[in-house]
Structure formats: C-alpha cells, structure tokens
C-alpha cells in the first residue's frame, strides 16, 4: 500500500497529510499510532519504537466517537484511566481539559444532547487528558457542518498547543486543502500506487490565517498542482 514513506514531526508542529481518496491516509495514520503494524519499516516516538497503541499517541476519529451512556466529564475521564489516579484528581484534570476545549459548564451533559462540534471537543479533551505527546487527527472536521467546522478550526491550534497540554506534535489527515493550509505547519502530499510522498510543503503563514489572503491561495495552488495528475503528452487543452 505504501512505499518509501519517510515522515517526521518537530516540537510544537502540526503536520498534515493530504492525498486523493482511497490512497490510504487513514491507514497511514493508524500505522503511525501503532494500530496497524507496517510490513516493513518502523515508527519511532522520541527515538523509541512504537509497536502497539499507546496513550502517548492519541487518535481522534473522523466519525466522532463518544460514549452516549457517559457524561462529557466521564467521557474525558476515560483518557485518564490508565494513569490510575485518585478520583478527585481524575475529576480535576478532566474538568480542566473540558475548559481547555471550551466546554466548561457542560460536565454533566450527555453527548447525545450536544452538537457534533461539541462532541468532537469532548473527543479532543479526552485525548488531551491522556497526556499525549502526539495527536493523530483523522479528518476531524469532515462530519461537521461548514460553520461549526470553521469555528473549531479557528480554535483548535491554540487548544492543542495550550500551555498546560503535554502535546508536542499533531498529525492531521484531511482531504480539504484549505483546511490544511489554514492549520498545518508542514504538509506531506501522498499520491500514486503504492502511495508515496510526492511533495512536502512548508506553510509559512502567520496565525490566524485568512483564506482570502493571496499567499493562502498560492499555497492552495501549490497543493492542487501536486495532487492534479499530469496527462501524458502534456497538452491539457486537447
């Protein structure tokens, strides 16, 4: 499925992976998280080989996954269970994470009573509560309506790299190029079969980024160009 994939992330960096549908972006994300074992090659976190899923690399799903029988607070506490903390400490940390994602006051509300955007915030809070070093985000805004998605996008960077989180890097998979330009520090472009990295683009734009800026559009054009297959013979006007 993949060939010659060589990726890295730096401290406090959000990298994005883009590519055509069906290329294996979500699978690659699961390989990075240790959910799927690569046939060849390896994943390393701070130099240590990743062989199975770990709370140090937390995954956020595309189809927003919360537990309907647990309140927002209880959902977040699931990310803390492996640490075997006293109940009071669990409550304190979980409440703090809900604050970080902007859900203070919603501790006792069930996910079913919340909008999709709020549910994704719970999932993010749950992931952050686990004290991850890396966050893997699998098209996290694709099931949200455009308005909610945009609101969350504008907040998510500061939310993730908030001073009290342990996060060092975020890997975002997306099919939306403008989302990627808006959020990422660096973009890996996947294409071909087997999939390989055909381009790496560093986005050097100040935050918050404005999609109407000329430079934003230029980055979009670069990504489009990398993803558009060049016809054999080279004449696109025919």
């Amino acid at each position, binding site marked *: 499925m993949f060939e010659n994939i060589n990726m890295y992330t730096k401290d406090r960096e959000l990298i994005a992976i883009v590519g055509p549908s069906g290329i294996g972006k979500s699978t690659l994300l699961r390989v990075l998280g240790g959910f799927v074992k690569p046939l060849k090659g390896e994943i390393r976190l701070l130099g240590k080989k990743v062989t199975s899923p770990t709370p140090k690399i937390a*995954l956020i799903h595309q189809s927003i996954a919360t537990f309907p029988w647990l309140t927002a607070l209880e959902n977040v506490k699931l990310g803390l269970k492996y640490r075997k903390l006293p109940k009071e400490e669990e409550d304190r940390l979980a409440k703090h994470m809900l604050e970080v994602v902007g859900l203070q006051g919603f501790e006792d509300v069930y996910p079913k009573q919340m909008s999709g955007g709020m549910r994704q915030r719970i999932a993010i809070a749950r992931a952050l509560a*686990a004290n991850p070093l890396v966050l893997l985000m699998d098209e996290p805004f694709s099931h949200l309506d455009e308005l909610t998605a945009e609101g969350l996008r504008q907040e998510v960077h500061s939310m993730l790299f908030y001073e009290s989180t342990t996060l060092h890097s975020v890997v975002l998979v997306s099919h939306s190029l403008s989302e990627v330009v808006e959020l990422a520090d660096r973009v890996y472009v996947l294409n071909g079969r087997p999939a390989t990295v055909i381009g790496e683009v560093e986005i050097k734009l100040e935050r918050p980024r404005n999609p109407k800026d000329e430079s934003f559009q230029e980055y979009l054009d670069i990504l489009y160009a990398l993803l558009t297959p060049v016809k054999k013979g080279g004449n696109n006007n025919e």
Partner: protein
Amino acid sequence: MNEILLIFLASLASLGRVFLTIGLSIITGWFLGYIAIKSKAFENIYISVVEIFESVPVISFFPVVLIFFVYRIGGYIGIELAVDFLVFTAVVWNIWIGIYQAFKTVPSDLLEVSENYRLGFLGKMAKLYIPYSWPRIAANLIPSFADAIFYITVSEVFSIGSSSYHVFGIGTLIGEFTASQEYTLALDGLGILAIPIIIFTYLLRRFANYTVSKYGLDTEIKVTKRGRMRIRYATRMSNTIAPFVKLSKYVTRIGSRSASSEEETRRNLPWRYLGIGISVLLLGLLVYGAFSTISSVPKSVWLYLISTTPNVLFNLLIDYIRVLFIAIVSLVFSIFLGYFIATRERVEKVLIPAIQTYASFPAPAYFPLLFTATISFIHTVFGSWTDEFYVILLGFISTFYYVFYSYWLGIKNVPNQYWEIMKNYNFSFWHKLRYVIIPSTFPYIISGLSSTINSAWGGLAIGEYWEISNSYTLQVSHGIMKSIAVATANGNIPLAAWDSLIFGIVVMIYSIFFTRKMMDLAREKYVAEEGIYLP
C-alpha cells in the same frame, strides 16, 4: 424391525412434524400479515395477541392443548394434533411477526410499481410481498427449527392421570430406550438425530444467506412505535453477516403507510372488512371461551382453585428464584466466554458454529443419558440437593445460549472506533467491560436475558417432575412447573389450568413491566451506534 431403521424413521417423523408446523406458520403468516397491513383493527389485535403469546412459555399452553385435542378430538389423531399444536406454538410467533415486519417495510416505491401495473392480491403476494418476506422468514427458521426440535422431543410423550399418550417419533423412541436401560440404542438415536440437525442447521444458514443476497433490499426503515428487539430470533445464527445484524434490530411495530390514492383505498376495502370481521370473531371467541370456561366449572371447583392460589404463588416465587439463578449464571458465563470468543478470531471460527449446532440439539433428548452417567457422583457431592442441581443444570444448558449469543452479537457490533479507543488508552480488562463492552451490549444482554428467562421455564417444566429413568423420578420440593406436571399426571386438569393461567398472567406482567422497561432504558441510553456521530 431393525432398531437403526426404526430410529431413522422416527427421526423422519419428528422432523416431518417440525417442517409441517413451520410450513403452516409461514403460509398462515402470509395471509394474516397481509390482512394486518390492510386493516388497522386487525393489526392492533393481531400484534397484541402475538406479543402476549410470544412472551408466555410454550408449556403454559399444555393443559389447554390436552383438554381440547385429547379429550374433544381423541384417538391417535387427537394426540398427534396435540403434539403438532404444541410445536406450532413454539415456532409460530416469531415467524408471524417476521412476516408482518417484512410486509410493513416493503418499500413504497415497489408498492407504487405494483399499483401502477394493477397487480391483484395474488400478483402482489407472488411478485412482491412473499419474495420480500423471505429474508425475515429465513432469519427466523434456524431458531424456530431449534425450538421445535426442543419441544418435540418432550411433547411426543405425555401422560394425564393413569393414561399415557405418545406418538411415533424420535423423542418417544429415545425416551423408551433410556427407560428400558438400552443406553447404546439411545445413544444411536441421539447420533442419528444429530445428523439431520447438523445438516439442516447448515442448510438453513445457507438458505438465510441466499435469501438475504437474493431478496434483501437496503431500505430505510422508519420506526415510529416501540417494540422489542428481535434478538432472540437472530441469536442462533452467524450474525457476523451484516443483514442479519440489521434484521435483529427491527422492531415489532412499524409506522403505517397510508394509502396513496382513493383507488387504492377502495381496493383495500374488502381486506379491511375481512380484518375487522376476523378481529370481531377473535375477540368473540376469546370472550366466549372465557365465559364458557367460567360457567362450566362448578362453584366448588372454583372455590378449591382459589384456595390453592397462595400455594400457587409460593411455587411461582420458588421457580422465579430458580430462573433468576439460571439467568445470573448464564449471564456471568456469557460475559466472560462471549468476550473471550469474540476477541479471538480463530477460536470464534470453530466455537461459534459448534455452539450453534449444540444449541439446536435438544437437551431433553440427551439429558437422561447425562443424568444416568453422572448421578452417583453428583449425589455424593450434592446429597439432598441432587435433584435441584439437575433441574438447574437442565435449565442452564437449555437456555444459556440465548444470552450468550445475544451478548456475542452485541460485542461483534461494538463500533470499531470504541475498540481503537480502548487500545489507545490502554484500558484494563475490567475497564473495558465496565465502561465500554457491557454498556455497548446492554440492549443485546437485556434481549438475550429475556429470552433466556422465557426459555428457562421450558427447562424447569421438563425437569421439575420428570420420570427420567425407570427407577428415578427427578423432582423438586416446590415449583409451579412441578405443580402443573403433577396435576396433569394425576388428571387434575382444572388445577393444571389454574396454575398455567396464574403463571401466564405473572409472566405477561413481568414481560410488560420489566423486560419492556429495561428495553426502553437500553434504547434510550445504551445504543453504541449513537456514540458515533454520522449526520
């Protein structure tokens, strides 16, 4: 006659009864289902009656069957009809409900096409309704087959007072062999019976796959009324097949599709009148039956029956404790074994078909052999509790698979995202069970548990008073099922009927107030699919 040939013929006779009753259930189901979708009055009565009868264990029909068929009709035909009727009551309800659900969910586009081409009753049935009902029927055939085999092996022989009645069949034959201590022949009988059971279970699974692939449609089912999840009838088949999972979730009542045109309303009119007519007839028969029963029983008998009521209720309480114990043991057993199997692909591939086949194999047929082989050892361990142990064991092995399969099916339906979350956050085994697996499978557990409880009554009915060998009658000190069996054996039909009536009422109340409440709770809070946000 050569014994092996005899066993073979007896197996054929029993299987013939099973397929006859299943066939009859399907054909009547088509007609009643059609009337139900055409007549609101009939639909309400039909579904209510079926739901009630479905929640009452087969065994409570026993005295009614005996009175009617053995006394009113009499002769070999009366006994044969009594046996067939008992088996019929074991298989018919789920098939009828399955067909009704299928008819109610025929896509309106297809209905409009059939209206467009002005198909009549036969045309619609042949081209639309019957084909569309096959996947549901097929899904119900495996459990119906297993239920029928379970009850046929015990209902082929019964006694009232000093008279013993039996029909030719494998249940009778194995019973006779065991009673006359010809254990090798009894084992031969079981072995020969196992062959068609394995073959038919396999063929029914293939048939179910075939019907789903040929007649299954992916339709959006709009559920507007509550109803029970149809887990029980999907539990004995391989539910890793997605359409079966879907079928298992359908509910009993589905919103009505209103007639699209005046022409259609006019054409439905005869069916509506027929439905109303049948409803009135059915209600009339029920009222007449109740009235004639009450008036035909002398006052002294009524007084005697009423005086037994506290005793009946005490017996019922004791049996509820047994049922509760069986249910708890089954649940605990299932939670661990089900999780173990569901999370190990290779073990699952072997064990699930093996348990399915075992579940179709009637416990009453082999239990006397198991009893004979273990009685001396069990007696040294349990002493005066020996009979109690065997009764509970019979109840357990007859019913644990309902909750087991239901739970297993629930685990197979836990969304993949939840598994990833559990791995991601290093959940311990207990955390997995407590926060994810048990809540996710809660609707399945309740449904399976309710089936286990219903079926446990069948196990108790057989075990609480059972002449298991020539020299031993298995019996408990107290129990409503024992009371029914003893009263029937003594020819005290009024007491047996009174016991059954009180039992039926209590089970029905339990079903309405407990099972449904739990199902409502499960549906309200514990639906794992709702945790995955897909707008």
